């Protein structure tokens, strides 16, 4: 058993942390207030070459192992959950299926620019009546001569309103549920494809988020991302563990920032003649937060390690996502309490952590769905 990072992973984490400290942390309040990603920050950050992290070197990537990727996601979310979301969408969900199944022409036109940050990518799962319940997807893909025609409305699409291309989940037959799902690549400017209503989020503000509308959108055959129709769910299974682990890593990063702020405040803020950190009830909070953080860290990196070993830790990835996110919520809550009334003021960080933490509840499956899934897996283990 060896819990140490490699020298290279340690160095990478330090490098990312330094970049986040210099570029992102000074802009975090601005990103939150404007609910927009500053164009200059996007250009500068994406120009540093991190977006290809998990992709092969011939695509300008680094072929990084899952642990290294999680270190990146964690550090990025330590800076800004909103900014991290926009970046990770381009690095993982928004480009994975294009990378796996895209034709050379599609890769050239969409994938490479996305890994340089020149194009914005997104992934469309959610609809008004489906999210975690993918079998209820209603966006329809009809086979026509030379391609497919897509019709439907996607919602809660991070980067959606600004995306240059989207990987869209659609069904070829709603009656067949999970067995008829497929991914299609749809590029901005395709007739019938347009952004719909914008959503204004409570937290994780920054990337534009909202509807994407598909009205009889024709895409050519090569835009079906997969070897054959009907295997979308199987393909999704390739990255679901990684996506859940990533959400856990983001929660861990955000929680670290909140915890560090809470700790600093507990050391400095005086009440009745001594720092509040000298009182048992505040120390209990610190102890509980630190314990939850360590446990979350162990789970997230254990799952990342298993993925890197070629295992399929479905249950453990779900558990890590749930535990780390709940820990993040608890930490954010406790830090607002340590701050007292100041935790309620927009001039201080805790109100933002409190809002941002809630966003991480839903990505990769709500905790109600995850609990049901994990419980089912365990019950059926015998």
């Amino acid at each position, binding site marked *: 058993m060896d819990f140490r990072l490699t020298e290279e992973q340690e160095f990478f984490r330090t490098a990312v942390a330094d970049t986040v400290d210099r570029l992102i942390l000074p802009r975090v309040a601005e990103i939150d207030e404007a609910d927009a990603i500053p164009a200059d920050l996007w250009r500068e950050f994406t120009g*540093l070459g991190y977006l290809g992290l998990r992709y092969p070197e011939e695509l300008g990537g680094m072929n990084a192992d899952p642990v290294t990727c999680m270190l990146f996601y964690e550090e990025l979310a330590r800076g800004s959950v909103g900014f991290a979301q926009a970046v990770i969408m381009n690095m993982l969900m928004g480009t994975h299926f294009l990378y796996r199944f895209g034709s050379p022409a599609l890769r050239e036109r969409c994938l490479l620019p996305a890994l340089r940050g020149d194009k914005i990518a997104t992934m469309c799962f959610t609809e008004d009546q489906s999210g975690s319940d993918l079998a209820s997807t209603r966006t329809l893909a009809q086979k026509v001569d030379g391609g497919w025609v897509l019709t439907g409305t996607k919602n809660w699409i991070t980067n959606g309103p600004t995306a240059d291309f989207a990987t869209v989940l659609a069904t070829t037959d709603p009656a067949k549920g999970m067995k008829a799902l497929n991914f299609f690549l749809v590029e901005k400017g395709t007739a019938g494809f347009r952004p719909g209503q914008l959503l204004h989020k409570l937290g994780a503000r920054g990337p534009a988020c909202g509807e994407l509308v598909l009205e009889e959108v024709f895409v050519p055959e090569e835009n079906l991302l997969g070897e054959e129709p009907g295997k979308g769910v199987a393909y999704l299974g390739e990255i679901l563990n990684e996506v859940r682990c990533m959400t856990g890593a983001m929660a861990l990063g955000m929680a670290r920032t909140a915890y560090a702020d809470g700790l600093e405040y507990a050391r400095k803020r005086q009440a009745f003649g001594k720092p509040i950190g000298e009182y048992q009830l505040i120390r209990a909070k610190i102890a509980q937060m630190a314990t939850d953080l360590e446990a979350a860290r162990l789970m997230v990196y254990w799952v990342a390690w298993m993925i890197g070993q070629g295992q399929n830790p479905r249950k453990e990835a779900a558990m890590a996502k749930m535990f780390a996110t709940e820990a993040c919520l608890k930490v954010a809550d406790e830090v607002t309490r340590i701050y007292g009334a100041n935790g309620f003021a927009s001039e201080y960080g805790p109100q933002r952590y409190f809002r941002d933490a809630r966003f991480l509840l839903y990505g990769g499956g709500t905790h109600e769905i995850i609990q049901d899934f994990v419980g089912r897996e365990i019950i059926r283990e015998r």
Partner: protein
Amino acid sequence: MKIAVLVKEVPDLEALVKVAEGGASVEVEKKRCLSFFDEIAVEAALRAKAARGGSVVAISAGAGTGVEAVRRALAMGADGALLVDDPALGGADSLAVARALAALCRREGFDLVLAGRQATDDEAGLIGPMVAELLGLPCVIGVTALELEDGAARVSRETDRGTEVLRTPLPALLTAEKGLAEPRVPQVMGLMKAMRAQPPKVTLAELGLEAPAPTPVAGYRGPAKRPPVKLLEGEPATVAAELVKSLREEARVL
């Protein structure tokens, strides 16, 4: 144009520093980085190279230290790195380090030598001028703007009377002040490549130098604890009078 940047590896500003019981030694957490002003000097060197062509070499001297500093410079885009690495430099004073750096600069030959104004650990600010003196080069300290011409450099520095603009022939040694150039954030591929870089090392003997005698340190003392804050309350006029009295008689700053 061949440019050298003299860099120093220092404890990170967030590294914990603890003075040992009795003040015989000081323990510093092993979090090392490139000194703040040296990073500015590296950026200025890279910009000079972009404007006039040539190469940038980062140089450091120490006893088993300096690798992290030159690696950062390499990650930022320096073309090469050299280290004077010698156990005899452990505990050496500024002059011994300056002699080592000057000897290496003389061996390599540079058109321009840049350094930070001072290091963020000892804040001595001696290396730049000492190396210049040893090499017999013109030296400008605390440069805030640099413009290269053929065989010369136009530099600015801030003085009490305003900005001073100087023109110096090259080769010259310039030390970087805050404002000269905003250091770039390195690209990730550069960082990972630099991480594996093993810069060539030379010893003092190879440079024809003798081992210096270490500087004896009499002792270390931590910074004094901040005295308690005294709050004055009452009518503004009374408080003002009390404040002036305290500043004069207790704090003795007036």
